[in-house]
């Protein structure tokens, strides 16, 4: 038993992957709760593709790709908020419009002969490919995002649960949405380099959706979400080590298992306690 737990720790790649998933699990679990409450799952899944024009332009003018990706994803986030606020559409539709148009533009730009090949995958990494520098950067960004969420907690709560009262608490809903989307964008930018697109979407939405099944209060929800993210991350990597399954996909499977358990627990809980409303 002890061997099963300790053996993977002798391998550098596995240890770095465990560190990266733990750091990113904490921040994703926390911001994931706001993603679920604000119904931003589509953004979490697709925003990374919106950085393509930024990446291509950075490559063409010789700027660092990471900078191009950062500018690209932030512009995508701002455009999504603008499209949501100024049209009558749901965020859902706005994201489809913005991401599809940006991705198309990125492909057209990438036709330029001087743009390097395979550029859209250059920033997407794999859990087993992270360096210690990656983990350190992820840690620093996570702390920043967590601090911002902490500061904005009350305002996010007020707007998220009661859109009518925006004026009474003196918060501009648009600027709050902009800040939240910006935080989501930064988290995605850092996370895709360590985890790849598939795992990023899963870890941003899965743990929070699981937590939501068992509690409605935001405090416990964040705590459970973070715990689920970290636990599923570690369980997934151990499974990948012992069962020889693809690392990122194993973490996703572990996350889904936690979600199904929570959904089961949630429906049992629901049956025992009579509906109060």
């Amino acid at each position, binding site marked *: 038993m002890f061997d099963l737990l300790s053996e993977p720790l002798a391998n550098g790649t596995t240890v770095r992957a465990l560190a990266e998933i733990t750091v990113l699990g904490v921040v994703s679990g926390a911001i994931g709760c706001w993603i679920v409450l604000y119904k931003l799952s589509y953004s979490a899944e697709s925003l990374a593709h919106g950085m393509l024009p930024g990446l291509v332009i950075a490559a063409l003018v010789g700027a660092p790709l990471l900078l191009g990706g950062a500018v690209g994803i932030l512009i995508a986030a701002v455009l999504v908020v603008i499209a949501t606020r*100024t*049209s009558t559409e749901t965020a859902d539709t706005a994201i489809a419009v913005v991401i599809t148009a940006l991705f*198309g533009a990125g492909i057209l730009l990438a036709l330029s002969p001087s743009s390097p090949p395979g550029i859209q995958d250059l920033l997407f990494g794999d859990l087993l490919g992270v360096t210690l520098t990656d983990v350190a950067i992820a840690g620093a960004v996570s702390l920043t995002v967590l601090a911002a969420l902490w500061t904005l907690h009350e305002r996010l709560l007020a707007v998220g649960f009661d859109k009518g009262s925006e004026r009474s608490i003196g918060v501009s809903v648009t600027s709050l949405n902009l800040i939240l989307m910006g935080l989501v964008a930064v988290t995605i930018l850092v996370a895709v380099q360590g985890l790849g697109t598939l795992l990023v979407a899963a870890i941003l939405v899965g743990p929070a959706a699981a937590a939501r099944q068992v509690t409605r209060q935001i405090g416990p929800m964040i705590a459970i979400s973070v715990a689920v993210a970290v636990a599923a991350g570690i369980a997934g990597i151990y499974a990948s080590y012992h069962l020889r399954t693809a690392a990122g996909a194993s973490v996703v499977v572990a996350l889904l298992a936690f979600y199904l358990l929570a959904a089961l627990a949630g429906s049992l809980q629901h049956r025992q306690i009579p509906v109060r409303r």
Partner: protein
Amino acid sequence: MLETFTLPYVQEGLIEILLLSVPAGLIGTWIVLRGLAFYSHAIGTASFPGLVLADGLGFPAALGAFGMAGVFTAVSALLARSRRAAADSVTALALVACLAAGVILASDVFGSGANVDTLLFGSLLAIGSMDLILAGSAAVLAIIATRLFSAHWLAKGFDEDSATGLKSNSAWFDFALLAVVALTVTATLSAVGALLVAALMVIPAATVRMFTRRITTLQAGTVLLVAAQGTIGLWLSVETNAPPGATIAVVSGVVFALALVLRSSKRSRKLGLAAAAIGASLVVAGCGGGGDSDSGTDKVRAVATTTQVADIVRAVGGEDVEVTQILQPNTDPHDYEPRPSDVAAFADAEIVFKSGGHLDEWSEQLVDDSGSSAIVVDLSTNLPVQLGGGAHDHEGEKAHSEEAGHEGEKAHSEEAGHEGEKAHSEEAGDAHEGEETDPHWWHDPVNVSAAAGEVETALIKTDPAGEASFTANTNTFRTEVEALNRAIAKCFDSIPDGQRKLVTDHDALGYFANRYDIEVVGAVIPALTTEAQPSAGDLAELERTIKAENVKAVFPESSYSQKLADAVARDTGATTEYSLYGDTLGPEDSTAATWIGMMQENANSMALGFTGGEQDCNFN
């Protein structure tokens, strides 16, 4: 200006987009009204495991996509029964579940040998009769479903709070809507590619909705807008030589932004205008790179799909053949969407040379759908040496390369050919039923020599007048190939056995290893799909093997990200300094721009890596 539309493949694209405008308009309206944009996007993306299964078990890719759409709809409907789950998180979870299943199938079950994504290859410029039938069926289905269910969907559309609960019999109408969306999206997907889905199904309906609330006006307006944007986008793409999918996406994005400007207040009008300006300038910038390759000569018009095939055809054809090469250096076939000039080259070609296997499967469809009458020559069918593909286990690989490494094999090409023949039949005996062959045959000079012969025969058939020149060119080329073969063999002979141990990113160099008696210790990524991922356990074992066997270098491939190779190298003290060319030749200005140059580069890199940087092959 309108003569673009006289080209047969453009006409078919136009018919396709006009047919698709019906379901896109009718169903797209519901997608927007009911907030199903994410769902429709997810249906397209979630087809991935269906494609892997179709590839692994050998049934049509479109069937895999339709099957997955069904599974996805059922899973979403099931998950949506929970009252506490928001629809968008459910869609996200169902989507990642499908993708994870696809990754595990591709990496751990089938070890897919190529980019399965390209199996569902779709472009408006390569429309076949099957695509037209699918689009037509989608149109009919959309009309019937709209007639039957419109009233129910409409009643629900304005009562959002109950939209996620599956109760009473309205649940069945919800399910019908999800199913119709899934079917139309999949029909669109197999015809025009994943990116176009939202450009046809979501953006136009969202644009029209800014101007009307009436459902019938909305639907009629959207059908017209999709038709108009599709026609303009198709025309623009042919005029500027850009891929039609991306062009239509940008056109509809710009139209949406302009509509937003028209509808919005003064303050946000500026923002909208800025967005539209950015969009428009992107279109202009993107379309700037148009070029034309037409030149009216009496040379043989040949198309070659990959870089290395094009190089062989150029070598054999010489002055008398005009070669259009479709894939560019360092491209991942994964990214490939045909540009109008590519389709025109196929339509115009007298003869098409393909590499064969998974690498250029799309070329068949382009030949058929461009209305080309070209002869297609698959160079992979008559090769002297053919190795099994897919996931190798290391033991088998080792045994095999030892067995193929008989002395004297390298001395004479005639003999090498015979040896190869033997290896081939043995290999075929071992191969499992339905196992594919490794498509990277050109890493063995004996194969390239044989391929040059195939090219020669085919060219003589097309242009008998050029026979003397083709034969002379082939002989010159073969002499060079044989000289190269001897030089590389000599180079590796001078490196001690224990040092010739190869660890690559992907399993692309099996033929090279087989020819020069190099032991393949392992590969970082288990399959060639870009979506495949390694497991922590396999990587840890690879690292232990590298240390135990004292492997000095891990060789990344030039066209892929080398993060994983770097991670392995860091832990084991190996170097990743020397990269190899696996799938393509190098860029035009590099030494690896020709096949011979590429082989020399690979041999040099390996020699340097094996000996810790002490010795290269010293070609000159």
